[in-house]
């Protein structure tokens, strides 16, 4: 298949009916593999890795903290992409996927903040510090709240999709700006990235592999949740559309 044919094949899933039929088939696989990967990753990480020589057993919260933090950001990126697709191609499924991902991203942000606080208490001696990373995540959470609230507030679904998409794009720019502003404003306590291509930098291999499994599990869980919630949004929209049709016919 040429690239354009592949793209056309991909756009076919923008049809809600096709989307529902397909996700119904693949969802069980995603649920199962997410469960397996998360159970394996967490069990491996919690019970079969040594304690860190400096951080002791507290380091093990990394298996929840890092995946949720990654997804908190990547969920927003996904919303940005699907918003752009909606604005350019007007595929309703795309807009609904953005709507479906927002509460998941917000939850991931909260998990990252909470696990970070639980980790920070023994390590830094404080639940919260106005460290750039922590602060950025808090701001990201506010962006999620605003985005979700705007979706909820607008009645007309198409208007809501348009407005939230523009908000997502403008918000992304401001989120990046905030990240730099916050970096400038306070240098932080937070350690460097846990995962990095630079071998010197990232965590030791013994922690690394269970972490990868756990991240994979979280990603699968995220995909499953987004597909499932998008399906719910599609059905809700269909009910709305059918009811509107009844009203017109009456």
């Amino acid at each position, binding site marked *: 298949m040429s690239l354009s044919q592949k793209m056309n094949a991909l756009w076919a899933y923008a*049809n*809600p009916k096709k989307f529902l039929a397909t996700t119904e088939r693949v969802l069980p696989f995603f649920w199962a593999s997410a469960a397996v990967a998360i159970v394996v990753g967490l069990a491996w990480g919690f019970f079969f890795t040594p304690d860190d020589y400096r951080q002791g057993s507290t380091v093990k919260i990394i298996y929840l903290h890092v995946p949720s933090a990654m997804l908190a950001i990547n969920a927003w990126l996904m919303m940005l992409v699907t918003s752009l697709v909606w604005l350019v191609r*007007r595929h*309703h499924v795309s807009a609904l996927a953005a709507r479906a991902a927002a509460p998941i991203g917000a939850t991931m942000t909260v998990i990252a903040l909470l696990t970070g606080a639980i980790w920070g208490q023994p390590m830094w001696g404080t639940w919260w510090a106005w460290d750039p990373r922590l602060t950025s995540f808090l701001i990201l959470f506010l962006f999620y709240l605003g985005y979700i609230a705007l979706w909820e507030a607008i009645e007309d679904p198409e208007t809501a999709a348009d407005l939230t998409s523009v908000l997502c794009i403008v918000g992304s720019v401001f989120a990046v700006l905030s990240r730099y502003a916050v970096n400038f404003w306070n240098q932080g306590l937070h350690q460097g990235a846990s995962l990095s291509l630079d071998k010197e930098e990232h965590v030791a291999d013994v922690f690394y592999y269970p972490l990868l499994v756990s991240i994979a599990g979280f990603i699968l869980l995220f995909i499953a949740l987004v597909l499932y919630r998008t399906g719910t949004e599609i059905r809700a*929209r*269909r009910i709305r*559309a059918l009811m509107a*049709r009844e*009203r017109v016919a009456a």
Partner: protein
Amino acid sequence: MTLTVTDLVIARGGVPVLEGLSFTLNPGRALVLRGPNGIGKTTLLRCVAGLQPPVSGRIEGAGDTIAYAGHSDGIKPTLTVAENLTFWARVFGAGSIGPALDAYELNDLTDRHAGNLSAGQKRRLGLARLLVTGRPIWVLDEPTVSLDRSAVEMFAGAVRAHLAQGGSALIATHIELGLEAELLEVGPYKARPAPLDDFDGGFL
């Protein structure tokens, strides 16, 4: 400037309300839209005025030629009658407000705050705004609401004068204006509900 509408489909709240609508409005002519409440006359006028995109179909000759008057008049209660009109005259880059004041007998009210006007007087002020836009095609949504009989006469006179100067008017109204206008009954163009098995981007 001729306004041509071809095979128009328009939607309100994502649901098609009118379809297959075509008409032509030539200079010097008036077209009166008729139809029951909720049929989509307001939506049609907003589409023609460019406030709302149609689902499909073409609208030609609209854009910078349209002067639109909807249900609300855009009148600021804290400004005087003259200030309200002058503002719109300057926005549209048109000349003096004198003729507009004359046409709707607003000369005695020029220094009154618009907030102190009666509903009918406000409406007259809102319609007077059309005269200061200098635009050839008037698109009017229920222009005679809250006007008394003599004010309706003023309005009909203003439309007649506008048509005589080569302008045209597209009016949704239920009352007889005494104009030589063509009638367009939009009821027959009511959109049929989309077939149910076609489950597409519109969720139907």
